[in-house]
């Protein structure tokens, strides 16, 4: 057999780097607060979008959102918050958190349980945590208002810790006694995919044995409505029609919040602990549009390069990809530019991976999206299904050459791509493989 440069590259990659597996997931999302519920929602295409009470004012043109269920975090006073009974959060822990951090804290407990980790497993030098969150605009607004009206010394001592973008990593690293690498990522809607990519690197480069990857967002009025100004939000009033990626009549995204925590571990750790992973995180690629601060490149150039790099890094050919969980947020420009990028990579070889956007069910989770949808891909790989792209009445002709399943398909994928794109034209593509 002839060994091409491509295959030599593949052999080199595989021989040097330990494999990285996804061994645990925690979900606090609009479509479920545990793995089983989320898996059922994905399979049955149950969405989490609703007519959102805080938007029901004449001056607010946006009416729907996909809030998390079972939590009440409307108050600026965290002691007013309620959350599911299975979680216990002490006041002294809660006071440094925004809603997104509380969701992440709960998802973290789930992920630890799901991966069957003991405290000795996660609190050590070789376990790190990368997180992504937009912070809590809601609490930051409250804090600023209080500072201006009541004076700087009347602000809650932990207000800043609870409000700024690093709040998720600050809190989880401290409260879970994480001793390894930790930081936060802020590439907007690509953030938690960046976190997953760099977490992969930490393990593949032998620096860490285990990484938690966290994406979280408040998903409330203050974190969603600012996107109305750039006309990025859907003005639909029907929750079942509002988020419809790839549909010709899509008119913007639906905001959501919550948290997802992924546990990534080296193959040695997986073997030592004897756990069954969901899937392998085989590698990733990233690239930037270099085009516009908020609008995707019309040809999806950065995303195309990100996918090419992801395939090259993992030694996967386009024909091997069975499913792409698209970034597609249901905005007119974004979905088409992603469709063009996918077309450019797969069509030359005649490959037709299934492409769907689970944002039709969840809405767009911003910093949360990458980690949440990586979790969805892991469920699809473990359980042998491809979630359909819901809410499509008529596929946009510009996306017509993609194989977009509108219903869930009972099909075992072997290789899955998860795309994410953020402001500034940052693009990440993660490659997941069946185990």
């Amino acid at each position, binding site marked *: 057999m002839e060994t091409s440069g491509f295959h030599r590259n593949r052999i080199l990659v595989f021989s040097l780097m330990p494999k990285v597996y996804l061994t645990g997931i925690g979900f606090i999302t609009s479509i479920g607060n545990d793995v089983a519920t989320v898996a059922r929602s994905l399979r049955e295409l149950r969405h989490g979008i609703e007519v959102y009470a805080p938007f029901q004012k004449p001056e607010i043109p946006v009416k729907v959102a996909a809030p998390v269920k079972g939590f009440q975090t409307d108050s600026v006073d965290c002691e007013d918050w309620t959350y599911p009974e299975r979680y216990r959060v002490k*006041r002294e822990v809660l006071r440094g958190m925004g809603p997104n951090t509380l969701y992440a804290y709960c998802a973290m407990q789930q992920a630890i349980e799901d991966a069957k980790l003991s405290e000795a497993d996660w609190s050590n030098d070789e376990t790190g945590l990368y997180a992504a969150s937009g912070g809590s605009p809601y609490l930051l607004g409250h804090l600023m208002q209080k500072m*201006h009206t009541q*004076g*700087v*010394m*009347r602000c*809650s001592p*932990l207000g800043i810790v609870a409000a700024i973008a690093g709040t998720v990593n600050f809190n989880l690293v401290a409260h879970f006694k994480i001793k390894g690498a930790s930081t936060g990522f802020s590439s907007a809607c690509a953030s938690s995919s960046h976190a997953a990519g760099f977490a992969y690197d930490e393990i593949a480069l032998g620096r860490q044995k285990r990484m938690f990857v966290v994406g979280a967002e408040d998903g409330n009025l203050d974190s969603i409505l600012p996107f109305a100004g750039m006309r990025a939000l859907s003005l639909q009033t029907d929750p079942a029609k509002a988020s419809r990626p790839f549909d010709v009549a899509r008119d913007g995204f639906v905001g959501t919040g919550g948290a997802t925590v992924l546990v990534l571990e080296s193959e040695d750790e997986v073997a030592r602990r004897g756990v069954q992973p969901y899937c392998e995180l085989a590698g990733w690629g990233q690239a930037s549009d270099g085009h516009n601060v908020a609008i995707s490149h019309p040809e999806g150039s950065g995303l195309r390069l990100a996918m090419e790099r992801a395939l090259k890094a993992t030694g996967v050919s386009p024909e091997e990809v069975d499913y792409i969980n698209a970034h597609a947020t249901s905005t007119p420009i974004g979905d088409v530019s992603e469709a063009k990028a996918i077309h450019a990579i797969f069509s030359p070889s005649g490959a037709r991976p299934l492409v769907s956007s689970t944002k039709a069910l969840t809405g767009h989770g911003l910093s949360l999206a990458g980690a949440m949808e990586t979790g969805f891909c892991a469920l699809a790989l473990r359980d042998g299904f491809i979630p359909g792209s819901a809410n499509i009445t008529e596929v946009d002709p510009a996306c017509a050459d993609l194989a977009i399943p509108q219903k869930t398909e009972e099909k075992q994928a072997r290789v899955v791509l998860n795309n994410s794109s953020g402001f500034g034209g940052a693009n990440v593509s993660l490659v997941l493989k069946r185990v």
Partner: protein
Amino acid sequence: MADVAEQGQKSREPGLAKPQTFSADDESALRETLKRCSPSTIEAAIAFRKTRDPEKVPTVVIGVIERFVEPDIRPKLREGDDELRLVEDLGVDSLTMMEIVILVEDVLQMQINNDELRNLRTVGDIKTFIDCKIRGLPLPKPTRHLPVEQIAAVMPIQPPFLFLNEASIGGQGATAKYKITGQEFFLQGHFKDNPVMPASMMLEALGQLGVLALIEGIIPSEDGRPVDPKTIFFTSCEGVRCHRVCKPGDVLTLSIKPKRAKMPLATFEGTIRVGQEKAAIAEEITLTFGYAEAVATPPNAEATGSGASSGNAEAGQNPAPGASEAAAFTPLRELPA
């Protein structure tokens, strides 16, 4: 940001806000602010805002602290022990302390500076501090806390005859703790098969705290000279009553307050508690002292620490002080129940 900085500066001006009228809106805002505090705290705060009565302040302050400590610790606070330590006993960290301060500032309409907080270690420290602020009195001298090593380094009395494990010296008095270990040499014979801390030793411990307070400058010196440790001796004791038998494992909380002092005599009142139970009181303990290079030792004085022994007091007998003590030691009048 210029506005913010200016506003911030204004809010840092120390002292009391001017009394304002207290409207129904103010009252509902205050009730909202204190919604997680006990009803008595809320009522005391409303009464304070209406009348500016400083007597209401301790209830408000304790109520605010209570709101921020974990529920299982709250009963401790309700016992009214001023010696409760914020960090060690109540689990209040520096951030929770800030939350307490912000709420107290808000409710009592006062400003507290960061540097004023540093010396607040016990519930009593906070009560005294806020009370002084409200009444416009000068703030007490900061309380200093001495671990056993520091105590042993300055005291003329040394183990195994030193009965202070830790001490706090404040402007108003001094407190200390001593845990009866059971290893004390005198417990071997006091009593047979029934170790009980001799009352005389409890008085000794109080006297030692007086010695420490003198050395640490609780009595202001007229000319800046420090008290010479070698000049301090026991002189007399009045109104001693014992209320409780103290045994190994008990932690004695000792406190003394200066009643009067004029070289060469300093008189303290002293109490000993175990938890909330009164163990012993001495209406007056008088020590003689001198300043460095001005030693004054009156006749008949006995060095504190040489053992003012009347060990069988607890047994229900009248004490029989030794000859050397007779002139100075007032017999124990009240015995444990």
